[in-house]
């Protein structure tokens, strides 16, 4: 049952990629900016909880809530100060390019602060649902993995319901599609940009907390997570959270299978080669063209 277990592992990692891809593409839809710092919020979530709980000795629930609040407040402040300066100025088109680099800078800034606060060792938030793997026949389900999957389904589902079935969700989409048109019907596009930036930061932190017991994080882990989320989001043309989600799952499963059957060492290399080939062979179907032309 090696195949089955690899698929399970792949779906768990894939659901992480999928969630980050969704975070990237939802915010891109609202703001037309790619957030390069999304993975760093996950790292802060994981290492922050670990630090507060293990080092500072706070009870686990307090540590988790404190970390999430800090991430949320920081995201709010970042939006109020940096994004506002960059985007709401007199030349907003230029501003979008600048903001892209500001999120890049944000990523480095968070890494630097994290290095000072948490050191350079591998740490992880404590497992929220400890114990041995659950088994079903010869299939193994790691409890942390199930927790990740549950979070992905709940948060992803909530996002989907919000966008699909509420006027606020449609307003959110509208503000990304046409900010002039959105303002005409009274939509405060800045408010949605802020709301989603904070929401995706906190969601990323939550995923960092539940996922870190599986892989362990260092202060540099954020970049890798962002990158994979980006690639998955790219397959959805950056604007289609649904496709990004599927792409994330696909990449996770592909990675696990390549790691298991081809080579643990060169699995990633082969995977990125396959992904690049897919984009070249089928750009329209993957929504890549629309991302470029827009």
């Amino acid at each position: 049952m090696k195949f089955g277990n690899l698929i399970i592992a792949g779906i768990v990692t894939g659901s992480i990629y999928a969630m980050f891809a969704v975070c990237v593409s939802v915010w891109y839809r609202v703001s037309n900016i790619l957030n390069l710092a999304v993975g760093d919020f996950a790292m802060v979530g994981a290492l922050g909880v670990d630090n507060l709980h293990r080092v500072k000795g706070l009870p686990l629930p307090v540590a988790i809530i404190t970390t999430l609040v800090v991430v949320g407040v920081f995201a709010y402040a970042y939006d109020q100060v940096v994004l506002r300066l960059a985007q709401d100025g007199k030349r907003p088109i230029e501003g979008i390019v600048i903001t892209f680099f500001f999120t890049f800078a944000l990523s480095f800034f968070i890494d630097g602060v994290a290095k000072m606060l948490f050191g350079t060792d591998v740490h992880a938030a404590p497992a929220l649902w400890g114990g041995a793997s659950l088994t079903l026949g010869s299939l193994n389900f790691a409890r942390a993995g199930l927790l990740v999957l549950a979070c992905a389904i709940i948060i992803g589902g909530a996002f989907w319901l919000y966008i699909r079935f509420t006027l606020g969700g449609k307003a959110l989409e509208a503000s990304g599609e046409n900010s002039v048109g959105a303002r005409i019907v009274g939509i405060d596009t800045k408010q949605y940009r802020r709301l989603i930036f904070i929401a995706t930061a906190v969601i990323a932190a939550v995923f960092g907390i539940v996922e870190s017991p599986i892989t362990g994080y260092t202060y540099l882990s954020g970049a890798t997570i962002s990158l994979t989320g980006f690639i998955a989001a790219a397959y959805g043309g950056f604007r289609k959270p649904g496709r990004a989600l599927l792409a994330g799952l696909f990449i996770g499963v592909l990675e696990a299978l390549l790691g298991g059957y081809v080579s643990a060492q060169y699995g990633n290399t082969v995977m990125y080669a396959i992904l690049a080939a897919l984009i070249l062979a089928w750009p329209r179907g993957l929504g890549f063209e629309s991302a470029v032309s827009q």
Partner: protein
Amino acid sequence: MSAATENPAGSTTRSTALAVTGLSVAYGNVVAVHDATFTVTEGDACAITGPNGNGKSSILMGVTGMVRRRGEVTIFGAAAKNGDVRWAARHGLTLVPERRQLYPDLTAADNIILGCYTWTRSIGKARRSDPYRKAVDLFPELKPHLKQAAGTLSGGQQQMVAIARGLAADPKILAVDEPCLGLAEAVAKRVYDVLAQIHAAGTTLIVVEEAPRRALTLCNKRVEVRNGMAVNSQGDAASPDPDGPFPPGSPA
């Protein structure tokens, strides 16, 4: 049409829907509108005409709050807040903008229902509301396309979606900017028929139009704009002289 072309200027009981005094709009150092003054009476159909690039659209942008302005704007007697589109919409003034400004990836129905965002946050309330249903019913030709992405519709259909979105906001004054830009003659005629219907149903209309002949089939009042100045105001009860306060074409 008969109700639409009746001149309400003779009636003294109608209130002032929109009063604009000394309106100026500038983009950086470029002054687009300079000191425009005009009023629109409730029930009027007012055409704002003039050559391209003379600030017609900017007047509407300034009045609705899409851009910052100088000068006074009152909507049904209440002084409008500068730069607050929502306030204007809630007080009855809604804009159907030039080039429609739809959301291309959203369905036509979603585009229209977002017009309701000016007065509600509940999608259920919006769907069941009179303005939304009336807006959709006004365009039977859109019915088969409501689930289609707005960006894939034809130009005429998109213009209808944009007008329907404006109506979903439940306006008392509907300001329509260049409704026939790039449309075939037959489609343009259909758009004007719909505007006449909307006007006949009691909505005050403001139509920005480069081609005054087309606009004046519907409108009983005209504001002419040249070089960013509203120079001519025909059929206005306040200025019975058909040439208005300025001789035509005098400011340069």
